[in-house]
């Protein structure tokens, strides 16, 4: 990354964390239904979002991709509208719960509930790029749990056959909600899946934003040049429970997670990439932005029942 990219990256990491913290506390306090924390995952999305051409490339995001969305231009107030499920939320319009991102303007495909159905939508999107020959690339992100669904197999295979301009990124945190890695797949990483489809695979430390950016840039540029898809296996740690409804002490050792967090936090590690004063100033700024966004969004009106059937058909 260039110096200015590093600053952009740090800003997004810091803002994502600030929003994440507030959403968690608000959800636990009963002020909203549902938080989906992204902490531990942020550097993955920041890595590819910084490597993408904003407004040109497309993202079919993982639901922990808040940080990527911030890089692509989602304002914090929109994030909080989504969190509070307000009808004015441009992502999910009071219809879907938080983390179901989507924005035509930002080139972010609409996220759905069943994971990870957006994978083939991303492949279709990349196919569109190939047919329209517009030079855009689609990044398709999902969890390591999601990667076990047939959807991903069929999608990766088709992308490889047609050398579609897309990049598959697994947020490999080792958990599918409560289910540990060894009950989800028999291998240590998922990178060997790539060879099965005839595409290159890259294993990367997904908590190192610089490394993630390098991997993503390589894959995105290969895709753009007509070299076809890449699978990136991005290792990370899910610092928090699955959602605010989850109690992860039932299935994992919190002390272990906290130790991993202390040593690997992508936000702390990214501080080494920027000036310390800059980082401190950004943290103050993002805290204020997050506070403002939460307060403002919570005050926005709830839905109007007369509109509930709107947009069922055109």
């Amino acid at each position, binding site marked *: 990354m260039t110096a200015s990219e590093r600053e952009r990256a740090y800003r997004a990491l810091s803002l994502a964390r600030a929003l994440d913290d507030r959403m968690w506390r608000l959800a636990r306090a009963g002020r909203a239904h549902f938080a989906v924390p992204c902490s531990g995952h942020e550097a993955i999305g920041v890595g590819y979002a910084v490597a993408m051409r904003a407004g040109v490339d497309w993202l079919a995001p993982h639901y922990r991709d808040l940080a990527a969305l911030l890089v692509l231009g989602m304002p914090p107030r929109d994030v909080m509208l989504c969190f509070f499920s307000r*009808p004015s939320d*441009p*992502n*999910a*319009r009071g*219809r*879907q719960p938080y983390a*179901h991102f*989507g*924005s*035509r303007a930002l080139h972010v*495909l*609409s996220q*759905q*509930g*069943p994971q990870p*159905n957006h*994978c*083939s*939508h*991303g*492949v*279709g*999107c*990349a*196919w*569109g*790029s190939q*047919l*329209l020959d517009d030079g855009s690339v689609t990044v398709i992100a999902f969890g390591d749990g999601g990667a076990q669904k*047939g*959807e991903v197999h*069929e*999608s990766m*295979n*088709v992308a490889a*056959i047609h050398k579609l301009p897309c990049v598959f990124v697994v947020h490999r945190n080792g958990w599918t909600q409560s289910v540990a890695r060894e009950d989800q797949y028999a291998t240590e990483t998922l990178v060997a899946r790539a060879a099965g489809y005839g595409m290159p695979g890259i294993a990367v430390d997904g908590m190192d934003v610089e490394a993630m950016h390098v991997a993503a840039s390589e894959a995105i540029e290969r895709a753009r040049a007509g070299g076809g898809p890449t699978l990136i296996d991005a290792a990370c740690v899910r610092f928090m429970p699955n959602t605010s409804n989850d109690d992860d002490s039932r299935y994992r050792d919190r002390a272990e997670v906290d130790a991993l967090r202390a040593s690997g936090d992508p936000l702390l590690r990214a501080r080494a990439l920027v000036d310390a004063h800059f980082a401190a100033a950004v943290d103050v700024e993002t805290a204020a932005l997050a506070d403002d966004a939460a307060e403002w969004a919570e005050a926005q009106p709830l839905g109007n*029942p007369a509109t*509930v*059937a*709107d*947009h*069922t*058909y*055109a």
Partner: protein
Amino acid sequence: MRELTVIEAVREALGDEMARDERVIVLGEDVGKLGGVFRATEGLYDRFGARRVIDMPMAETVIAGVAVGLAMRGLRPVAEIQFADFIHAAMDHLVGEAAKIRWRTGGDWSCPMVLRTAYGGGFRGGPYHSQSVEAFYAHAPGLKVVAPSTPADAKGLLIAAMRDPDPVLVLEHKRTYRAIRGHVPEGDYVVPIGRAAIAREGSDATVLAYGMMLHESLAAAETLAGEGIDVEVVDLRTLAPLDRETILASLTKTRRLCVVHEDTITMGLGAELCALAAEADVLDVPPVRVAMPDIPGIPVDDVLEDAVLPNRATIRDALLRLVARERSRSHGAAGPRAYDPAIPQASSIV
């Protein structure tokens, strides 16, 4: 006047629209060099090339999912599922995704995709090459479902589907492909989605049918005409959303309803049609459903398949029973009440 079979009409619709609109992309299993197992896409590969006529792996989930993605990007994918029996793997992308994308994003995104598939029995295909699937998809608000029975409608509805801003499932009865031939206008036209047609006017009873059963119903009506019974046959054409107006207008006239479909009876489309009629209070005698019995599949054995599928003889018998029924209700001095379109709507809660 030029006559085509249903499969020729489908092929013409695809070719014409691909020529007119280069956003139209055909994808599916064996749709390329082979031209589809029923030859619906014959010639398209040579005419439009492998970029726009795409042979997909045998993977129905990604066929539907890629169509969703292409449609979100503004292309006009026309996906083919080879046999409707294999559509279940595509269901989540049709019912869970395509049908919901516009609504869940408040109109930010849309999903103008078409999915065509060949359904229906009478072809010695057994339980996995003969099924009707309309009931599963007519229950998915946001999705439109059409089922042409004539060549002219096969062309006009498919063109309409390809131009529709929302996802459309096109159910083509495989027996009509070659068995049904008829006049098809040249050039560009659409048959509007959401409108039924009166295939035969009559006054003694109304048959609601679609696909191959439309033709069996017409044949039964012809026979009955010779016996002095005058049956109206409505070709539903669009199964979701239903053309309540045309349906209820016919029933208000004849006051007797016979639904015919190949699908199994319980929770088949006939259930909704009977419910509609009952709510609208337009019948003088109980309705009749002629349908497959509730068995898990259509058997391949000749005798067994013929025994389970409705046909002109069983439809005729049902109609004879229907018109013979004594009116079980009086209309009072004022005669039959006119259909009040507000009634069934009022039973939903917003």
